[in-house]
């Protein structure tokens, strides 16, 4: 079953018979894999991505666990994107120092696609094509500037509107529009010729 953030949150809010712990468990369960994928695209590192998602989950539960369920979606995205930005800043400093002291080590980073299991339902040829397309999309998204990457994933994948995306990214709606259109242009430029 495909996850739809809007319907999932509405369903959670409507079921008032559940207590808050169950409700927040449902919410996190519905969103955790997508959050992980966003973090993987940003970091290209499985462990860092898991750490980011865990931090975001704990922050949401600790700070907003007693708030109404309808606020959790926007709040979680805001926390997640902010945690990713913090990671990005830290890794930039770390990489700068490493480069300064040890030179360009040209270290091969983990390919996030290595961890993906093969979906059993598809034919091998189609499966291979999809896997390649997914790898290409992941690489293209990873190469985007972080703000463009966030704008694209929140608008296009999560289905947030401009205002909600601006709240999650902690920037103006104008910036969201700019980042989003630039992201689409860059992705189309990189991918369109290679996609079926």
């Amino acid at each position, binding site marked *: 079953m*495909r*996850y739809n953030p809007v319907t999932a949150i509405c369903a959670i809010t409507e079921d008032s018979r559940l207590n*808050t*712990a169950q409700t*927040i*468990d449902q919410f*996190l*369960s519905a969103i*955790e*894999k*997508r959050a*992980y*994928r966003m973090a993987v695209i940003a970091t290209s590192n*499985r462990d860092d991505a*898991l750490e980011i*998602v*865990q931090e975001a*989950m*704990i922050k*949401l*539960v*600790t700070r907003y*666990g*007693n708030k109404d369920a309808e606020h959790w979606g926007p709040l979680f995205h805001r926390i997640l994107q902010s945690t990713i930005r913090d990671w990005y800043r830290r890794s930039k400093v770390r990489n700068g120092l490493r480069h300064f002291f040890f030179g360009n080590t040209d270290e091969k980073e983990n390919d996030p696609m290595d*961890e*993906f*299991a*093969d*979906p059993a339902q598809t034919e091998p040829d189609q499966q291979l094509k*999809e896997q390649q*397309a*997914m790898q290409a*999309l*992941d690489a293209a998204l990873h190469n985007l500037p972080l703000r463009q990457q966030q704008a694209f*994933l929140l608008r*296009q*994948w999560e289905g947030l509107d401009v205002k909600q995306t601006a709240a999650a990214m902690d920037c103006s709606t104008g910036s969201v529009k700019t980042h989003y259109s630039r992201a*689409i242009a860059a*992705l*189309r430029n990189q*991918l*369109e010729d290679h*996609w079926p």
Partner: protein
Amino acid sequence: MIDDDTEKNFLAHSKSLLDKSIDAIDTDTAAQLRTMRYQALEHKPKTFNWPTPYAAFATTAAVLMLTVSLWLTQPAEVNDARVLEDIPMLTSGEELDFYQDLEFYNWLDDEQING
């Protein structure tokens, strides 16, 4: 127009790939995410559950009854005048034994007058 359609197709294809990538997350990672979720839920702040209206009404009624019963069974008022009479006696330096035996001295006094 053609470009709009191309962009729409491109975006739809991207979304579809991203959705499929969720199904492709391996079981170890999914299990780790589940464990992390349970750990996060342990951080949930405790909340105070306000009593239902019936419980609130029952509590208020009980407090009211207690107040009324205490008010009705309170000891009789102390006579302020009698308390004031005792003050010089208590504050004087005389032995308290003298006052305790005062009745005896009064009787003795009466006997001497009559005798």
